[in-house]
């Protein structure tokens, strides 16, 4: 068993929690796992990516190569597009349809890619594009986008419902546990 998951978004969107949850689920189920993340300057509203590699064998390099991601969780559409070459042929793409315009687009120095949505559909074996932000807000906080996306992707991952609930209880701050559990379940239904 080898599952490579790329989590992409914009600095400040909370991509880190998703990878921490995945890493701990893998650890509990006896897999090897490596995660690689972005700190520092790029966190300030830049493009951010976290690599999650889970395997029943030893994981070597912490980075997923182009064409090797089984799943991409995208917190934003342009970032889904940017990282599309990393998706395996026939891989699954879960994308929050939110669009955050980068400064070059805002300033009119660069256009938004015309064929973005079409390219996402063509490349991925399975695309689940939905408004995870709206669901998260309905659950109580826009910060829950990560758990909504994880809920949606859970069907492609080898972890039980109980394991998900346990890891959310353990790794999410006290007051937010129930909200995140609810957001996860809403993601599963999405």
């Amino acid at each position, binding site marked *: 068993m080898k599952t490579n998951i790329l989590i992409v978004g914009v600095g400040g969107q909370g991509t880190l929690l998703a990878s921490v949850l995945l890493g701990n689920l893998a650890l509990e189920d006896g897999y090897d796992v490596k995660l690689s993340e972005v700190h520092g300057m790029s966190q300030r509203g830049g493009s951010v990516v976290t690599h999650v590699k889970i395997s029943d064998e030893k994981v070597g390099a912490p980075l997923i190569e182009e064409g090797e991601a089984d799943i991409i969780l995208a917190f934003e559409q342009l970032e889904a*597009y940017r990282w599309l070459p990393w998706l395996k042929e026939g891989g699954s793409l879960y994308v929050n349809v939110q669009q955050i315009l980068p400064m070059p687009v805002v300033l009119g120095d660069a256009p938004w890619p015309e064929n973005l949505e079409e390219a996402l559909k063509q490349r991925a074996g399975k695309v689940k594009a939905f408004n995870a932000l709206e669901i998260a807000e309905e659950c109580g906080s826009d910060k829950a986008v990560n758990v909504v996306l994880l809920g949606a992707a859970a069907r492609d991952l080898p972890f039980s419902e109980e394991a998900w609930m346990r890891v959310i209880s353990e790794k999410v701050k006290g007051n937010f546990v129930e909200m995140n559990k609810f957001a996860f379940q809403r993601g599963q239904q999405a």
Partner: protein
Amino acid sequence: MSEKNRQIMLGNEAFARGAWEAGVTVVSSYPGTPSTEVTEAAAKYDEIHAEWAPNEKVGVETAMGASLGGARALSCMKHVGLNVAADPFYTAAYTGVNGGFVLLVADDNGCHSSQNEQDSRYHGRSAGVPILEPADAQECKDYIRLAYDISEKYDTVVLLRSNTRISHSRGIVELGERTEREIIPYEKNVNKYVAMPAMARKLHVAQEERLAQIAADSCEWDINDVQMGDESIGIITSGIAYQYAKDALPDVSFLKLGIVNPLPKALIRDFASNVGKLYVIEEGDPFIEEQIRSWGIPVTGGKDMFTIQGEYSANMIREAFGEDPAEHDVDVSDAPGRPPLLCAGCPHRGLFHVLSKKKTRVFGDIGCYTLSALPPTSSMDTTLCMGASIGMAHGFEWATGSKENTVAVLGDSTFLHSGITGLINMSYNGSKGTVIILDNRITGMTGHQQNPASGKNAKGEPAPAVDLKELCQACGVKHVVEVDPFELEEVERIVEEETSRDELSVIITKRPCAMIVKQPGIPMVVTDRCRNCRMCMKIGCPAIEIKDGRPIVVPERCVGCGLCARVCPFDAIESTGKEEK
């Protein structure tokens, strides 16, 4: 081993855990990506005194003092920080230690958060200390423990070299127990600890001898791992490059080096003689390769196959060995870049809006505010190194004879790190320039560490705060003005006044970082009074976008700081008065 003894840890957390297990009691560092989390994690252990020093030089000197005092000590920094600490480091490499002393340096291959890609291994070799290089989180923990044993056994500082991908990757780490250590009693020894010329000459001889001893002994160490496979190809590698090479070429023979200075020469010769073609795969400069070639050992491929720049990947190595590149039927080359930005609510935005408007020449520095060099403010002329803004503005003034519409700009932590000496120089050597200190009460870019002006220490306990105004005055600056950077008219007036003044001046902009104080959280909205002049676009706020040809405020990204309303000439932006979830 029970479940709890295996944890997912960041490389940097594993370093801290390893230091704790090795019995370390003193850590003194300056924050710098990608090294920062080691000291943050160390500060959480009760047994460790962990502190933020004002700069890396002080950190190394503190750790050296702790070592002499008989404790195991650690100092952590990013690669460029080692330049600052080079002075004590190079001579501590002569004197040796009492308690174990490890200097942890994290390079930044790929310049994720740095101004250069310098290879710290050269510093270690030039100073003459052993360098260990781990390749994953478990090794981060294991190698730092080993580094303390080596430090004490051979009486030497040990350089532990990490980089962004090692420090900022998480992996499963098996935890161990802490070994409590007795303090090693200090004994006065002027021949060892007073590096005057007569002593230093002898210390240099001793240093050469211990390096030769380590080069011989390390041929037997487990951290230098010979993995024989297909013997027609042999690869010598270390650190993160090992992971990429092993993924790319799982069947060939490997010598994975855990120590890269001094190189275990006999082991390398032996490995080279047992394989057909020898390759050296190392990220960064040809540090291992050039030494091996200098011994007359033929190397089939090194930097002629693999780049000096950036990070490696398994695919890159596969392609260098003749595999066809992976084919892509997807072209995303039209994806616009997403450069980082100052955060919504950032206090720096007000000042840089004014400097941009006034077309002021800005000698910049290292911190979040370096981002104001990018559009739309584009209000920075230079960025060199910590504290350089002040020295460069001073030199520029002497070269051109003018200080007109020119400022040096740096943050509070950067000022205390190494800007203060530049200001003393300006005062002493007759500058009439203007320095702006961005006082946001924290060290921002590295993730909000405390500093000597923030009023708290690394453990979060209350600490005396340096009064920046009084400090500048004590340096001989007569004109020191404080201003809220969001009071735009006042900022503009003061910048005008101080840059026109025929005397040295300092402006301190005071407003806390938007990430450390609660923001109003009530989003702004662009009303129908908007005449689409786009003045609000000039501040480069991540919450303002163009929709259907007009600026809008995106409520979930707006923190309600209200700077956009202050720049709007038509009072068209106002608060919604409604809190955003």
